[in-house]
């Protein structure tokens, strides 16, 4: 999944777009190496030391990983779940809609 997200972030650099992660790894120290190795440049909240049982994923009732939500520029939830090409299409559609 990282390659797809890297290319999406790269392609839309400079556009009014952000990929925001909620990371559920328990060990924040170990994760730092992964960020460098995988070139993960996008920002993530940390879900805390309880990992998948952490407060953000619990509140959002996340049962499976990864889980995706896509919001428009007003902060409205527009899509749940699309990955890969479907994610790209959803984002491109919302950017087009935003430009009117």
């Amino acid at each position: 999944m990282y390659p797809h997200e890297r290319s999406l972030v790269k392609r839309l650099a400079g556009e009014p777009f952000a990929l925001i992660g909620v990371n559920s790894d328990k060990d924040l120290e170990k994760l730092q190496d992964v960020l460098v190795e995988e070139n993960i440049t996008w920002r993530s909240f940390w879900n805390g030391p309880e990992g998948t049982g952490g407060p953000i994923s619990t509140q959002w009732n996340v049962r499976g990983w990864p889980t995706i939500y896509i919001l428009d520029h007003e902060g409205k939830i527009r899509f749940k779940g699309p990955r890969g090409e479907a994610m790209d299409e959803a984002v491109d559609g919302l950017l087009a809609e935003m430009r009117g």
Partner: protein
Amino acid sequence: MEDLIDEFDERMAKFMEAYRAEEDEAKRQELFTGLYPRPADFAPRFRALANEFKGTQAGAKALVWIATNVYGDTQEATVDELLRDYPDSPLLEEVVPLLANRSDEGSRASLRSLLSESPHRNVRGHACRALALNLRGLSADTEDTDQSKSLMAESRALLMRVQEEFDDVPYYGGTLGAAARGELFESDRLQIGMIAPDIAGADLQGVDFKLSDYRGKVVVIDFWGNW
């Protein structure tokens, strides 16, 4: 019956052990074709037991094994068989959650009758929650706005009822009540068209920020982990 379940579990444990010990990806794939106990291969043996012990709890247990280990049409048909032949079995609590994602009218009719008629509180509780989720899915797929709203209201009421009547019923290491609380938040705050609830917290470098800092941009929220 128990022997067959043990045989499957032992083979699965052996497979998991070998899989964890093997680091080479190609060899791991070989384990899948060799050592992995395919549920579809075991299913006919459970089916034979289900037929032999039809009408008894052992027969029901064999069907529950098939319904919870095999996917697709076989799973759906086996769940339907259980509902038809064993409506009073306490074992139904294991398969009732599978009805939450089904779109056929029959699945909702079954859940309604289990909720009112099952002699087992756990089964009624699971039916209450599964019906709530099923109706929520139906609401999302219903174009008529009024009808969609009324389905959502019924779904919501059922999730409230789960918390009132079935709060402590065990479910996946937690309880039905805890699951229903998460699902109510999802119904109330996380539906398509709703403004996303804000998230505030620290990033992976320890710097605090908020989801709403990104208002004005199209945002993909990705719940991820490196595993």
